[in-house]
């Protein structure tokens, strides 16, 4: 078992990608580097019928490390500044283009780039205590990992505008009525619900 911020398991033909920096599973530089490695060298070789993305512990992810982000965006090297962001977007985008269902199981906080990761998945199943949002405007930022593109395409442009401009978070039930998540279940049922969904989607294949 490695100590990487992202770990991959496989069982019963389903891969499980787990964010492993509990409790917050914050997405710092090490996380994104690990994801880029995963995208380049692990993902292409996976022969599975589904992928479940989840966070270890109480939360899915609290999002990016804001202080580290500031350092990177104010760095002076031309090209380096946007390269890391393009890399992050490409990493999440890689999940959106796989030939099998990708299901995010969301407990606790799923904020900022954490939600952007979940948005890149095909489905989102939330626990009752889940809290989802894109709070970047509260830091004087805007979502930078696909949130302004994926959220309106998922829940409609007006609702997405309202959520992103206010930076507010929604609980699981509101997320369900918005279409931001596809189901709300007991926390202990997250994994089994995701597996059942993948089974149903791939049964005829």
């Amino acid at each position, binding site marked *: 078992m490695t100590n990487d911020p992202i770990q991959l398991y496989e069982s019963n033909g389903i891969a499980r990608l787990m964010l492993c920096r509990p409790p917050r599973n914050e997405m710092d530089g090490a996380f994104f580097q690990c994801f880029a490695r995963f995208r380049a060298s692990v993902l292409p070789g996976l022969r599975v019928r589904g992928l479940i993305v989840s966070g270890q512990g109480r939360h899915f992810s609290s999002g990016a490390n804001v202080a580290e982000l500031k350092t990177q965006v104010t760095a002076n090297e031309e090209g380096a500044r*946007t390269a890391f962001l393009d890399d992050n977007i490409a990493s999440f*985008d890689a999940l959106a283009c796989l030939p099998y269902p990708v299901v995010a199981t969301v407990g606790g906080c799923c904020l900022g780039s954490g939600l952007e990761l979940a948005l890149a998945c095909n489905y989102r199943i939330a626990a009752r205590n889940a809290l989802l949002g894109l709070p970047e405007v509260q*830091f*004087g*930022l805007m979502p930078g990992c696909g949130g302004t593109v994926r959220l*309106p395409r998922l829940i409609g442009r007006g609702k997405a505008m*309202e959520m*992103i*401009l206010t930076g507010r978070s929604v609980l699981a039930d509101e997320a369900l009525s918005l279409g931001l998540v596809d189901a709300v279940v007991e926390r202990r049922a997250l994994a089994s619900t995701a597996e059942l969904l993948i089974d149903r989607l791939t049964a005829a294949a």
Partner: protein
Amino acid sequence: MEVLYNVEDGIGRITLSNPPHNTLTHPVFAGRAQMKAFLDDPSLRAVVVRGAGRHFCAGADLECLGDQLADPDAIHAALDEGKRLLDLFRYATVPVIAAVRGSCLGAGLELALACHFRVASAHALIGLPETGHGAMPGFGGTLLAQDTIPRAGVMSLVLSGREFGAEEALGLGLVDRVVATKDLDTEVERFIDALVDNRPPSLVRAVMESIHNADRMPREEALQRETALFMEVAREGFQPDTP
């Protein structure tokens, strides 16, 4: 029909005026250059679209339309041009809120749907009644409605030609809030404050532009553009601690 422009405290107001029902006498209901200049004003933090008097807009003036149909090529071109006007609302980089009082029907609803949000008074009447007249919505309604309500809802909205009260419109998702008629103006301002108060205007514009790209660019291009906008925003101002 007259279109009146006014700016006060950073809120731009566009008033449609053709009393009593503010019917549109022509699809090109405003001058494009003037409308664009108004919406691009960097001092604006939001725009309110409203009708003069007691109604928002009851739709196209059917007598005028009847006359205009005598020159089908001209009216065809005018409808296309009018839709490009509505695109100015749709792709404006500040929030555009329709303040809907009274009748909001046909082209009036299509105009309101081109806005980002709709706040309706309790007595508003909302619908696309064109099919009841043997016509169909020709001002973008069949498409714009799909941004706010599911496709099946759009089909029943258009094919039934029904006119909905404000609460029912809220339930359908056609409007975002219903308020007492006397409170409409203050509630619209509160709605705007909740969206943009304390946000740097450049941040709001960057967010809006990126959201618009989600439906007018292919995904990859929109994502790349988001990165560029993110960098501009981050460079401008960045407080790691929540206020």
